[in-house]
């Protein structure tokens, strides 16, 4: 509280305590649900062992370059996404910052719900409560899934863990960057790693594990000729690294001015991918066991990604396994921890944005922003219509919102404002790993082409084919409506005046050669 007041009065910006704290927090943000439930299935469906090639190419040509772009913006302009982008490029860019904040806000609403499910299943693991039919249990007994629409019929089994997740999250956010976010990551990230390593080791000794690993790692070279496989690789890297919706701008803004950016960035990016490979091994060894138990091929298994993998397939496997409860506890505990450290970063984007714009203390922002988000989250996602709404909102927020944000950032920052050389010079002035002109080319050309293609093809397919067989009106409200709300929020929040007088009194550091030349010319 005191820190919040002091900051509003002009004291130093909050900071990580050092490089390790920042790296752990950034890895905690990047390693999330997608590493565990998305990567293994995506790799398997898109070429198996051969997927490594497009995956690496995507990491090096889009993932790491965009990560560096976010770091450079947040670190040079030292603010939340709206403030950093405003300092970089005026009001239009501030609007892009609010667009990112609004996406983060929406994502936090349902991400919390999934963590709440994982927490419930962590508890259910002790007595294998899902019984003989995990699919019926998940949709029926646990979620009480109803017809598409909006109901206020709350499901207590979801409501209670959801409220619990919100309370813990807001407590951590309210405790600040060093004592809240960093401390939570320093505790939870190593805990996640240990729990997941034990799980993978256990999975490797299950009978049939080798069948799963064969399925995952045997290369299908023909897949490399399919453009969709490459798009899948770019999309996996892109969604996995927590880039382009404000998180890494916000996190980098809490580093000291004299701080290495690209060196830690490489560590974060490779750590994230390393965890994905580990998850691939663990998940497919487990799936191999399941296929062997049923006497079928891994190819014939269903539910290999996402909610289906985690809350239907895995419970079914846990039930068949000797020592199943222990395995379930490790899996759902890992899912909860991985999701929680990512959720913190998503909400910090929103908290930082409103703190700076409205001159709020950290506690005021946490209670105001967090309280609103918690109420909306409970209303939308702890009811009988929660699962469907979650699926649709997630699809639009990510595939249209986050990808659109990345394309806009690249075009506006690199092409319209021509800030590539300044940001490159900034990275190089403070970092141990130097980036060349090729970095600007990757961020300015490769990223908008690949991500722009992803965005347009997704919009076309959603317009023409709809989504999940759901009624058009429903998709209009929960899908396109979500995007409309995000855009409206971005416009309104940009138009609201700043509650601080020092908005334009800001010096970038380090000064660039071009700055001193300009000053010379002005004399």
């Amino acid at each position, binding site marked *: 509280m005191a820190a919040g007041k002091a*900051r509003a009065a*002009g*004291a*130093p*910006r909050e*900071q990580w305590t050092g*490089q390790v704290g920042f790296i752990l927090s950034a890895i905690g943000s990047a390693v999330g649900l997608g590493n565990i439930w998305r990567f293994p299935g995506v790799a398997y469906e898109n070429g*198996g*062992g*051969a997927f*490594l090639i497009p995956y*690496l190419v995507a990491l090096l040509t889009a993932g790491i370059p965009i990560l560096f772009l976010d770091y450079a913006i947040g670190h040079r302009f*030292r*603010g939340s996404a709206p403030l950093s982008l405003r300092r970089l490029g005026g009001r239009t860019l501030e609007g892009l910052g609010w667009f990112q904040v609004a996406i983060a806000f929406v994502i936090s609403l349902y991400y919390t719900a999934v963590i709440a499910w994982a927490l419930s299943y962590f508890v259910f693991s002790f007595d294998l409560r899902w019984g003989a039919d995990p699919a019926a249990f998940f949709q029926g007994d646990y979620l009480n899934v109803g017809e598409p629409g909006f109901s206020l019929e709350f499901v207590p089994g979801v409501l209670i863990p959801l409220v619990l997740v919100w309370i813990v999250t807001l407590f951590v956010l309210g405790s600040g960057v060093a004592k809240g976010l960093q401390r939570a990551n320093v505790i939870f990230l190593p805990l996640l790693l240990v729990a997941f390593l034990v799980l993978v080791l256990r999975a490797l000794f299950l009978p049939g594990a*080798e069948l799963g*690993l*064969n399925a*995952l*790692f*045997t*290369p299908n070279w023909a897949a490399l000729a399919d453009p969709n496989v490459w798009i899948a690789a770019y999309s996996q890297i892109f969604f996995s690294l927590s880039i382009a919706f404000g998180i890494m701008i916000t996190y980098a803004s809490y580093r*000291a*001015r*004299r*701080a*290495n950016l690209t*060196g*830690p960035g*490489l*560590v974060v990016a*490779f*750590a994230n*991918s*390393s965890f*994905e*490979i580990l998850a*691939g*091994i663990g998940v497919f060894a487990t799936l191999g066991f399941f296929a062997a138990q049923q006497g079928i091929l891994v190819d014939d298994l269903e539910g290999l990604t996402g909610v289906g993998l985690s809350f239907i397939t895995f419970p079914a496997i846990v039930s068949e396994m000797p020592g199943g409860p222990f395995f379930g506890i490790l899996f759902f505990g890992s899912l909860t921890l991985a999701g929680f450290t990512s959720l913190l970063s998503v909400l910090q984007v929103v908290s930082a944005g409103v703190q700076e714009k409205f001159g709020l203390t950290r506690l005021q922002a946490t209670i105001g922003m967090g309280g609103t988000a918690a109420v909306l989250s409970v209303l939308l996602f702890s009811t009988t219509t929660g699962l469907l709404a979650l699926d649709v909102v997630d699809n639009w927020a990510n595939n249209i919102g986050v990808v659109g944000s990345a394309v806009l950032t690249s075009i506006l920052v690199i092409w319209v404002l021509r800030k590539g050389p300044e940001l490159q010079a900034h990275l190089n*002035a*403070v*970092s*141990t*790993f130097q980036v060349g002109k090729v970095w600007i080319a990757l961020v300015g050309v490769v990223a908008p082409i690949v991500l722009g293609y992803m965005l347009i093809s997704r919009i076309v397919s959603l317009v023409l084919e709809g989504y999940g067989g759901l009624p058009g009106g429903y998709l209009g409200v929960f899908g396109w409506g979500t995007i409309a709300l995000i855009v409206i929020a971005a416009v309104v929040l940009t138009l609201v005046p700043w509650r601080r007088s*020092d908005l334009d009194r*800001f*010096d970038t*550091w*380090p*000064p660039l050669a071009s700055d001193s030349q300009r000053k010379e010319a002005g004399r």
Partner: protein
Amino acid sequence: MTPLAIVFLVISIVVIWGGFALSTIALARRPERTDYPAGGEGEAEGL
């Protein structure tokens, strides 16, 4: 496991975990620059 799958398992681990190990070692050896431009020590200007 089949030899082909083992080869790709090993390559994946060497490349990705190797990337993580190399970037971590490089950072441990040189965590920060020693030649920062002048200034940038006080934080008050960087709210």
